[in-house]
């Protein structure tokens, strides 16, 4: 094709943190392929892939991704990087979860009926949160008074948690942004972190040409390879948001 | 042969608003180049008839032939040849000039507009310099009426229908409108139908007068209408007693609608009562006005009898003989048989 261009659907976190604005110019310079992206919820991103409206996906919801491939929509799932999730809450920590294991923390929140904000939007983050409840042996809350589902993006959910003095689970990147917006003295603090289960894996998916013959499979593969290349992985490692390291490259 | 000169031929026209019949005309012919005056009380159907003649709507039943052919609203013939000055003239939200040329522009006739507008305005007695640039709302009632008239005259229509063209117009302008109407007929052969409550004016312009009453048409011109209720006496006489004690006695079959028409030619005038048979009505009243009917040289006289008005036509001779003048006491005389019931 004369104009080598690629359309990508991705999640808001990669866009909002500024990672793409940082990476993509490198990609375009090195390969001569121009890349446009639309940032949406993970669910909608996968849907756009399923409908062949984009050529490549960059998302973070491993179970949904696997299902996507199993259904024959996608191919070549390639893990490229991860960051992690943390539980944040008010400084005075009314449920006393600081330092606890993730399952104990959630139980404490439930027992104290402390306000907990869930995104409730089926995003990668929300899906992870549901797994955590399950792991803690707690039936998925829904209509409970203390369990508030915002149906909004991460930052909006954090802001609501702050207004309501509640807990929430967030990816670290968004928390850093939130912190910086509050001038470093954010009312909500990180209370639980570091558990292995809190890892947040990002992968590149190409679309199965059998489902989407018009999608630019070869260019998508090029992008996938490029993301996994050593130089790109170094770029990702060097990416800083407000002076803090955000993503850990882990391409194999 | 006969049809060729008919502009309109109405056959069995009935028109309803909802369930109310407002027009019922069996047969009406209007000749090319004639001027027809339409007379009738409020609500008698003048406006309705004019709208039908303008093909601005269809009659509920019946046919209207125009130049011998049945025509319909929006037909090109009608659109370019027939125009109606509505009773409540509506001016477009533009200048007077634009209002007057609107019809011409529709006809894609765009030559010498200024000259023609100047002429049209002067025909209705308005000054071009002063009025052409005015906005539609910067006019007095009569001025607006005359602008609307000018907008019709400039079209040189084949048929010009005027619905109370002088209702709010001053005497001088009424004269101008009469002259313009006559000129339209004489120079362009325009057929005119004009509704008006100003009988003197209407008589001075029209060749023939039609009286409308409750949707029925009387082609002999202005007539004297006596509305009920009547009292029935002896099975065949109907009597209306006036407030001053006088009574009118009429003969006829038991009427349901209770409205009597007495033609003006059946009425005679005198100064004193005479002996006569019991069927003769002799009513005393006051001569209220005398108007010249220019064409015939006759005089239309109005006589007030208590709260009724009678109209009759007199010769100058008769007037001289009886030394009549407005204010004089007179006797009207007509026979109880000389009546039509509607």
């Amino acid at each position, binding site marked *: 094709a004369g104009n080598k261009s690629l359309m990508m659907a991705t999640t808001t976190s990669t866009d909002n943190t500024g990672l793409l604005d940082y990476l993509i110019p490198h990609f375009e310079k090195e390969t001569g392929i121009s890349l446009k992206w639309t940032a949406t919820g993970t*669910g909608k991103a996968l849907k756009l892939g399923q409908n062949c409206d984009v050529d490549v996906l960059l998302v973070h919801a491993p179970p949904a991704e696997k299902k996507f491939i199993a259904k024959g929509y996608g191919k070549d799932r390639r893990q490229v990087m991860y960051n992690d999730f943390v539980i944040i809450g008010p400084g005075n920590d009314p449920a006393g979860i600081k330092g606890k294991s993730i399952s104990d923390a959630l139980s404490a929140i439930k027992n104290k009926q402390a306000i907990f904000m869930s995104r409730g*939007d089926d995003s990668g983050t929300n899906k992870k949160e549901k797994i955590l409840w399950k792991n803690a042996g707690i039936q998925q809350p*829904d209509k409970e008074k203390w369990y*508030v*589902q*915002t*149906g*909004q993006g991460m930052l*909006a959910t954090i802001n609501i948690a702050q*207004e309501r003095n509640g807990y929430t689970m967030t990816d670290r990147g968004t928390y850093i942004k939130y912190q910086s917006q509050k001038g470093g003295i954010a009312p909500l603090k990180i209370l639980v972190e570091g558990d292995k289960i809190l890892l947040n894996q990002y992968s590149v998916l190409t679309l199965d040409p059998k489902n989407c013959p018009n999608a630019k499979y070869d260019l998508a593969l090029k992008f996938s390879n490029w993301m996994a290349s050593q130089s790109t992985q170094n770029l990702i490692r060097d990416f800083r948001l407000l002076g803090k390291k955000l993503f850990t490259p882990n391409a194999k | 042969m006969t049809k060729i000169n008919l502009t309109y031929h109405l056959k069995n026209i009935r028109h309803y608003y909802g369930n109310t019949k407002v027009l019922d005309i069996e047969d009406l012919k209007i000749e090319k180049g004639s001027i027809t005056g339409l007379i009738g009380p409020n609500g008698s159907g003048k406006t309705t008839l004019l709208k039908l003649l303008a093909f601005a709507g269809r009659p509920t039943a019946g046919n209207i032939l125009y130049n011998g052919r049945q025509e319909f609203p929006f037909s090109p013939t009608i659109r370019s040849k027939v125009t109606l000055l509505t009773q409540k003239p509506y001016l477009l939200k533009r200048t007077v000039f634009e209002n007057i040329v609107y019809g011409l522009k529709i006809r894609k006739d765009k030559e010498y507009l200024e000259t023609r507008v100047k002429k049209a305005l002067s025909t209705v007695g308005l000054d071009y310099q002063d009025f052409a640039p005015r906005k539609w709302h910067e006019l007095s009632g009569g001025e607006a009426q005359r602008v609307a008239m000018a907008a019709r005259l400039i079209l040189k229509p084949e048929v010009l229908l005027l619905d109370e063209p002088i209702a709010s117009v001053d005497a001088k302008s009424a004269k101008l409108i009469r002259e313009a109407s006559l000129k339209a007929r004489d120079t362009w052969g325009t057929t005119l139908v004009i509704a008006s409550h100003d009988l003197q004016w209407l008589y001075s312009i029209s060749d023939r007068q039609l009286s409308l009453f409750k949707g029925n048409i009387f082609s002999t011109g202005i007539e004297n209408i006596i509305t009920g209720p009547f009292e029935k006496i002896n099975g065949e006489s109907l009597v209306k007693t006036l407030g001053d004690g006088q009574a009118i006695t009429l003969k006829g079959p038991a009427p349901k609608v209770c409205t009597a028409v007495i033609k003006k030619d059946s009425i005679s005038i005198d100064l004193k009562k005479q002996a006569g048979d019991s069927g003769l009505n002799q009513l005393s009243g006051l001569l209220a006005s005398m108007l010249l009917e220019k064409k015939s040289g006759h005089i239309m006289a109005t006589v007030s009898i208590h709260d009724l008005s009678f109209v009759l036509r007199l010769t100058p001779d008769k007037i001289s003989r009886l030394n009549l003048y407005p204010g004089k006491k007179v006797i009207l005389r007509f026979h109880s048989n000389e009546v039509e019931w509607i």
Partner: protein
Amino acid sequence: MDFIVAGFIKAIELLVSGDSSTWTAVLATLQVSTCSMLLSIGAGLPCGFVIGYFDFKYKKHVRTLLDTLLALPTVFIGLAVYAFISHQGPLGEMGLLFTLTGIAIGQTILAFPIVTAITASTIENIDQDLKLTLVTLGAGKRHIIATCLWEVRYGILAAAVTAYGRVLTEVGISMMVGGNIKYQTRTVTTAIALETSKGLFADGIALGIVLIMIAFIVNLSLSFLRRQ
């Protein structure tokens, strides 16, 4: 394409099955839109009347300003209201954030210029003769307002219906001020936005149809006010 068909079926399911999250959203939507419409009509009709009826010096400027306010983005209104009623804002004490009342305030701001502008332009079209007739029949100022508005009732109805459509479909204010909290401040429109972002397009369509049905029922019950 299929999801549109699926959406229609789902819409019926949602309503028939009495899905509680749908029904609470419908209720929330009705509550806030009714409230904001009452407020904006109450304020907008007299304002629109004054602007349309009287000739004053800066009338044209006021009209331009009003027309500009028709283009207030909902997110903008949402942010502005948020600034006032968030805990750090001047009205923070009132606890209006993340409440239906907060949304209603924002939507009133949204609907007010629409009601006012359309009312004003309807009133401007009023016959001069009507004004003169009312004055000469002895109408006072309140009578003039009431009668003029009644004379142009179809225009006023159009103003209200247009504003209602705007209020019913706005997302920005409900999202920002209400927070889209499930079972509490989630309205039908914020629910649509959520389902769509989840990629559940059929659910989005279904909720959209639910919203349109609300509008339909409201308009149907208003239609008796229409000219026969």
